[in-house]
């Protein structure tokens, strides 16, 4: 046997490749991306609506306000989880192939997360703006007591942050699953 003429090295993670994988995946799977964005948008809109209309002070009103708030957040997180699990399941072979070509676990993890976060951010912005407009509009039309306009920007930022955090939470498990997928999956399944 000859002398070995090469050394094992480590692969570096390329953030450009992470982005290009995430973006091209979004472009091709528009349906899934829109579903994820809509889920986040609905939750953000609902949350923003709740925060831009005045809340009653009675115990029952406060309780139901919190209940609605928590439910909307839960539904959003589960929705993102479901949508991203579907996206990852559709890509079993593709992820396996990328790993056969030398794709690192971190690369897969980050590209799935990046895809979810971009889609989630689009949903969060759209949803919170819609929620704000509807909330303020309903309030104005009913002539009720309004939430002080000065408090709204902070609440908007809060809703954006919460919606993004929910997206991250929902996407984390599917991204982890994808990153741990053995490259041998590339051999399995049909087109």
């Amino acid at each position: 046997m000859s002398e070995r003429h090469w050394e094992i090295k480590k692969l570096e993670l390329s953030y450009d490749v992470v982005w290009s994988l995430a973006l091209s995946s979004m472009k091709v799977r528009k349906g899934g991306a829109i579903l994820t964005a809509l889920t986040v948008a609905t939750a953000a809109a609902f949350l923003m609506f709740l925060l831009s209309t005045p809340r009653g002070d009675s115990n029952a009103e406060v309780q139901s306000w919190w209940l609605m708030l928590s439910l909307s957040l839960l539904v959003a997180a589960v929705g993102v989880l479901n949508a991203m699990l579907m996206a990852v399941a559709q890509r079993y072979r593709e992820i396996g192939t990328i790993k056969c070509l030398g794709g690192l676990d971190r690369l897969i993890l980050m590209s799935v997360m990046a895809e979810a976060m971009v889609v989630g951010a689009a949903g969060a912005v759209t949803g919170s703006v819609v929620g704000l407009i509807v909330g303020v509009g309903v309030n104005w039309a009913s002539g009720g007591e309004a939430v002080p306009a000065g408090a709204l920007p902070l609440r908007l930022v809060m809703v954006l942050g919460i919606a993004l955090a929910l997206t991250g939470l929902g996407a984390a498990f599917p991204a982890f699953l994808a990153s741990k997928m053995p490259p041998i999956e590339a051999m399995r399944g049909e087109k």
Partner: protein
Amino acid sequence: MNASASNQSKIDNRQSKIPLDWLSNIDEAIDVTVMAEDVCKFYHEGQPNEVRALGGVSLEIYTGEYIAIVGPSGSGKSTLFNCIGGLTRPTGGSVFIDEIDIAQLDANELAWLRCRKIGYIFQAYNIVKVMTALENVTLPMLFAGVPGDEAQDRGVEILKRVGLGDRLLHTPKELSGGQQQRVAIARAFANNPAIILADEPTANLDLKTGAEIIDLMRAMNDEQGVTVICATHDYKMLDVTDRIVWMEDGLIRKIAKRGEIEIKVDQISD
């Protein structure tokens, strides 16, 4: 693990191993690129439904060789193939690629090995659907840290070599099966690997396209001196190989160089 079976297989292999002088018409010294030593693979080990996929396979594959692994479904050829490619860890035994025991590598090093030293060609092409032909070919180069422009230039060059110079920006949907397999071949050769692992590369193609793919793989093997290991059912593929390894029940039954066998359309005989 079944020790007697693995010992028996060692004996089988020793008997069937081709002496090193079989390539004596080649001037350079013969290097071993892949060495499998008593490789075993069991699924569901120790359970009642234990399956022995490989029962102790030893095999040396020489640099620049074009070798075919044949055998019926379930004979263990895919498992051997996956063990050599670092896609499955053997239950026992070792696989060396250029003297490196791949079982000793961590996940990142294994990814480096797959990226730089091994090119994979799959039965179902496995072109990344969301990318163009050129992007598919440049992807392994980008993983390897080749700068974007350089990867682009080399990608164009290899795609031209495989006859797809006019299909650079087409996505898999716009390519025929044969063209997709050409992209896969270009992608496998992108990082100048030491080994090409091809898993039934012509199984999904018609006869004529399959023959074109076989000719292309053989030509690239000759041009680049890369070792090609090919699991196949295709007799036309056997016709271009240097050596043929027969597998059955997870063991190597026979190894022969091509000149020693006669290939007919529907059968292979000594």
